[in-house]
Structures are given as C-alpha cells and as structure tokens.
C-alpha cells in the first residue's frame, strides 16, 4: 500500500476514534441524566441487580478462592526465601484488597454480565423493542439502559469485596492448612497491614469506577449495535474487549492518584 494511502487511512481511523469517543461521552451524559431523574424504576433495577450481581456470584467466589490459593502458594514460596513466611497474610490481603480484588472482579464481570448486557440491549434493538418503547413515548435509555447501568455500578463493589474475602480464605487454606503456616501470624499480619482508608476504601473506589466503566461501555455497545445477529455478537465481544482494557488502564491511574 502506498504511503499516501496508508497515511490517509490512519488519519481517517484517528478521526473516527475521536468521533466515537465523543459519541460515547454524549451517550453517557444522556444515560446518567436519564438515570438520576424520576421515574425511578425500582422493579427493573432489582431485576437487573439479579442479572448482573447475583448471577455473577458463582464465578466471582470460585475465582476468588482460586486466586487466593495461588497467592498463598506463590507468596509462601517466595517469602520463605526471605525468612518472612509469617507475613503471608499481609501479602495475600493487600494484593487482593488493593489490586486483584477490584481488577479481576471487573474483568470477570465484564466478561459475564457486561457482554450479556450488551447482547440483550442489541437484540432488543434488532427486534425493534427499543423503537416500540420510543413509540410509546418511553425513553429506552431511561427504561432499559439506566437500570442496567446502575445495577452494574452497585454490584461491582459488592462482588469485588466478596472476591477479596474468598481470596483471603483461599490464601489461608493453602498457606496455613496445606503448607503449614502459622494461623495466628496470617491473621494478625493481615490485620496490621491493611488500613481502612488507603487500602479498603481505595479498593472499593476502584471497584466503583470499574463498575461505571463496564456499565457505560456495555450499554453503549448495546444501543449502538448494528441491527443484525452479527451486530449482537459484535456488541458482546467488543464490550468485553473494551471494558477489560479500560479496566486495566484506569487501574494504573486510580492507583497513582489514590496513593498520591
């Protein structure tokens, strides 16, 4: 491909990217505006919390134990080299509370609930259900989008905390029960090391931000999907990809800012 054409293509791509970002931002503003105004759709919100939160419990808890177990294993083997095996509780706890809990939960939830959310909205678009709502003078952003997004934002910190607790338990199982570490040290170093403001609040804040990101991305991809079956699956997959990358990138910035 000749350089001039390549450059033109690159330019077009960049402009398209900026334009998409702008559309996304405008969409998000409208979604939030619809969400914070009455009517409050409590019934739909409850249903959506069930779909995003309750249905994600199994994957979050199992993964939490697994990740905690690995941390326990890796942590123990590494700390033993420095004679600091008693610090395992602190290592597992801090890793989970500050980083792995919020980040991994967000990735899991984006994959499970985020893609489902985008696919559901996209298929509603294909079957004209969204237009049907518009013709009844009901705003689909308010009726469909806002409850889904809000449910995701509320569920994320709860799920992240459960992931963390199950992880700490997993670390205990491996580090203490299997590898013979000292249970007292595990718990006391954990308690000593973890601070409420820096660690717990920081972790919850991250989970909240990730929840917002996944929610906005999933609803956006759903609403702007191409009205076809291919469009539905594209909405789902692109949600997972974009939401995952957004989680990881914003993780850096939040970590840097929260720790000043």
């Amino acid at each position: 491909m000749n350089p001039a054409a390549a450059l033109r293509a690159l330019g077009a791509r960049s402009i398209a990217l900026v334009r998409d970002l702008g559309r996304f931002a405008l969409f998000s503003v409208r979604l939030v505006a619809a969400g914070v105004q009455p009517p409050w759709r409590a019934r739909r919100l409850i249903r959506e919390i069930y779909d995003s939160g309750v249905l994600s419990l199994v994957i979050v808890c199992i993964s939490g134990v697994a990740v905690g177990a690995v941390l326990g294993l890796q942590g123990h083997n590494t700390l033993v080299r420095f004679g600091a095996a008693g610090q395992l509780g602190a290592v597992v706890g801090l890793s989970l509370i500050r980083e792995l809990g919020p980040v991994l939960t967000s990735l899991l939830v984006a994959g499970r609930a985020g893609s489902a959310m985008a696919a559901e909205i996209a298929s509603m678009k294909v079957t004209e259900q969204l237009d049907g709502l518009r013709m009844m003078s009901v705003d689909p952003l308010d009726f469909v989008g806002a409850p889904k997004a809000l449910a995701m934002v509320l569920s994320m910190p709860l799920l992240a905390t459960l992931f963390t607790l199950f992880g700490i338990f997993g670390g205990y199982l491996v580090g203490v029960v299997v590898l013979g570490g000292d249970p007292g040290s595990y718990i006391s170093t954990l308690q000593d090391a973890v601070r409420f403001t820096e660690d717990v609040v920081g972790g919850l804040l991250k989970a909240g931000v990730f929840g917002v990101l996944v929610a906005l991305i999933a609803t956006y991809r759903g609403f702007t999907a191409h009205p076809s079956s291919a469009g539905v699956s594209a909405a789902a997959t692109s949600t997972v990809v974009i939401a995952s990358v957004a989680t990881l990138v914003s993780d850096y910035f939040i970590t840097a800012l929260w720790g000043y």
Partner: protein
Amino acid sequence: MAKPIEIEAQGLCYTRGSRVIMNQLSCVFPRGRISVLAGPSGSGKTTLLRMIACLIRPDQGALRIDGEADLTELGLGAVRAFRRRVGMLFQGGALLDSMSVFDNVALPLREHSELGEAEIRDEVHRVFEAVGLDSVDALLPGQLSGGMVKRAGLARALIEKPDLLLCDEPFSGLDPPTVRRIEELLMQVNQSGGATMLITSHHTESTRRMADHLVLLLDDGAVSGDTKALLQNDARVAEFFAESTSPALAKGAP
C-alpha cells in the same frame, strides 16, 4: 375522543449511501381512512412509515399533520406529545420479551396515566377482547403464535386510543385464514375508533379488500388516490397488482 390525523408528505427526499430511497415524494393520507402503502421491496414503504413515526428524519421535505405542524421539524418534547396520539404495530410485534403480555399491553397506561391497577386491568381486558385475545395475560411474548403476537402488538398500540395507527407489514408471516382475521380486525378498529390508519403491505389481496386509499411507491414516483379508482384507471397500479398476485400468493403465505 379520537381526533383522527391527516398526514401530507411534501417533497420527501432520502438517500442512504449511494441508494436514493425517496425522491420528491408527495402524497396524502386522508383523515380517518385506511391507507395502504404498497410497492416493491426497497421502495421506501417502511422508511416512510418510520419517518411519520419520527424515528428517522428525511434529508429534505416536510410531513404536515392536519395541515399545520411539520413532523420533520419537531423537537423532542413535541415528538413525545405527537407519539402519545400514535399507536404503532411493528412487524415482529416488538413486545418486550422479558415481560408478560399483560404487562406489555399495560405499559403505556402505567407510564402515562394515573389509573389504578384495577382500572388498568379493565382497560387491558377490554382491548384484549377487541383484538380477540383470551387468557394470555401471564404468557411471555415468546410463547405466542404469530397471529397472537400481532394481536397483542395491536392491543398495545390501541390501548391509549390513538388518533393515528401505523402498521408495518401486519400480514407478514401469517397463514391466509389468519390474514383474513387480522384484516377484519383492522377494519373493525377503523370503523369503531375512527383513527387514521396507515398500513404497509406486500399483500395485494388484503390491500384490494381493505384499503380506502392507496399509495403505491414506484421507481418513478408515487401514485396515490382512492383505491378502486386507481385500480380501474391507472395502468401502473393495475399492472402492479396483476403481476404481484402470483408471486404475492407465494410470498404472502408463511
């Protein structure tokens, strides 16, 4: 009470990419009558219907309601107000598949009216009876047959007693007996309620039977007028209906 709407399209133009879908389209949909929008596939029938529903905007032209406001210029609030007077039956019914049929049909009342649950129930059952639905309250849309989906969609469109009823391909995917039944239902609705009805259809037989007013979209423009008159006097109309009869029979049946 119903104040049926009259719609006049003036010089509508709409291009998608390289395809010219509409070019200076002008026609009238008379007050209180059943108008059928016919034409070959891709002629812009559904597009015109969606423009009247304010779901899309034409590139140029105007859509006047009752000779006054132009639909293409309305702001969001005015569009909402207009839509309160309009009921739309979508091709697939467009019922929310996570809600029961009852909740679907009750939705407009729950959203817009101050009625209590008991009154809403009465209204929903009244309209169920009008469209010939029975014992479907707790079913999900996915559990309904094709004909029942159309009836339920029609029930939802009618529950707020609209002045304008838009139907997108109401006969698609139905067997001939059901087509007749839906046809009769629509004519009944028009007679009892008096709303202006706008139907897009491939179905030449039904069109012949039910349309007071016909708008035929052809490549070189639109032909519109009283159905019987057109069929007798306009060669293009007669030709369209003659040659569409055979493929239509094969197409109209599910």
